[in-house]
């Protein structure tokens, strides 16, 4: 069933932004190779300071988010005093450090890192049995820690993402780290091909990984509101509906930075299988309950490492729900 998306300005903006991101990716990697991680870390400080000083909306969103964290008992314990602009600056700085680590990981230098795995056994068992798994991540810590897991358990990881440049990204990743079994599969809401491709991955016993915290413009109506840090927030329902189509176990996977090149990699089984009723009202309610479980699990980890939440926009003002709810 071929479905065609509109070609509005949001879509063309997205394409432009993506082209820019591709250029940034090549430039960032080339620069990183040239000067090395240590100098990049030093240079990151003025760059972060510049962005912090000039990005008013991001700063405001960061502080708002940190206040929500601080309003919870766990958040208060981790943050200590009420958040200030300095806390917000540390939030930005954490993002820069994560990017430097990410470049290192893309270059296939996992061996320079120290990963402590939590809850890896159930995931490893499924991989060994050649059973495909859907892994949900978030913009918390480093999703690239998945690469370490892929190498350790010798499993192919397929990153499902909204992009028009999957082939180019795959080429860059292959150039950087030829042995890495990580590839990008483009998610295209207008074509059933991508869903069939992901089904193929699961049938071959591979991992499919997707970030499930941000509502993408392509997810026009696949979103719902669930509680998150004390207030309703919009989350995409697409990853959970995809899970129902794939019919495989679903895990949450996060890589939380604990120090220079040190990560806690947490794998948590969310659902043995996502099953959705046929009729729309019950289906919407059931999808929302799966999303709420994901959001609750994510919140627990956010409160462990609040400065590693890399959504620098008003998360609680993401587009509101469409037809699904």
């Amino acid at each position, binding site marked *: *069933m*071929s479905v065609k998306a509109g070609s509005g300005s949001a879509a063309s903006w997205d394409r432009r932004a993506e082209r820019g991101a591709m250029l940034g990716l090549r430039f960032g990697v080339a620069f990183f190779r040239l000067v090395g991680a240590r100098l990049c870390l030093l240079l990151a400080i003025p760059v972060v300071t510049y962005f912090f000083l000039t990005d008013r909306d991001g700063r405001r969103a960061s502080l708002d988010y940190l206040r929500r964290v601080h309003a919870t008992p766990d958040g208060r314990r981790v943050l200590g005093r009420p958040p200030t602009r300095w806390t917000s600056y540390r939030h930005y700085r954490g993002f820069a450090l994560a990017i430097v680590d990410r470049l290192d990981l893309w270059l296939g230098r996992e061996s320079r890192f120290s990963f402590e795995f939590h809850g890896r056994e159930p995931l490893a068992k499924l991989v060994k049995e050649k059973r495909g798994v859907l892994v949900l991540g978030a913009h918390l810590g480093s999703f690239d820690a998945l690469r370490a897991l892929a190498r350790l358990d010798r499993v192919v990881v397929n990153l499902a993402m909204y992009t028009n440049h999957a082939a180019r990204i795959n080429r860059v990743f292959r150039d950087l780290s030829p042995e890495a079994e990580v590839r990008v599969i483009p998610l295209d809401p207008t074509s*059933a091909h991508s869903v*069939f491709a992901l089904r193929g991955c699961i049938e071959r016993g591979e991992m499919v990984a997707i970030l499930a915290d941000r509502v993408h413009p392509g997810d026009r109506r696949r979103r719902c509101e669930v509680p998150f840090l004390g207030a309703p927030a919009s989350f995409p329902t697409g990853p959970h509906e995809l899970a129902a189509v794939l019919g495989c176990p679903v895990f949450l996977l996060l890589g939380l930075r604990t120090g220079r090149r040190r990560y806690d990699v947490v794998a948590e089984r969310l659902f043995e299988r996502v099953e959705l009723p046929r009729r*729309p009202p019950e289906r919407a309610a059931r999808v929302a309950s799966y999303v709420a479980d994901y959001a609750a699990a994510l919140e627990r980890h956010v409160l462990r490492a609040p400065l590693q939440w890399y959504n620098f926009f008003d998360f609680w003002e993401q587009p509101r729900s469409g037809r699904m709810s």
Partner: protein
Amino acid sequence: METKDEVVQAVVVILVERFALRAEEIQLESRFGDDLDLDSIDAIDFAVHVEEEHGLVLDEDDLKELRTVGDVVDVLYRKLEVSTRGAA
């Protein structure tokens, strides 16, 4: 499900019951994306329901070609004819 009219009815029933569409907005020329706001996950879901309820398999190649409700009806009717002939 034997005649083309019955295929049309079956498709409309799935679209109404499964995707919360109104019967009156579904025409043979309705396009899945632009007119009915259905996407790739819906397409797979639709194929699964057709298979579960009517035993007709819509594979990736079939789905690639389908743009309108009329296209789906034609493909399903063709498959139905083939399966009926095979059973006879």
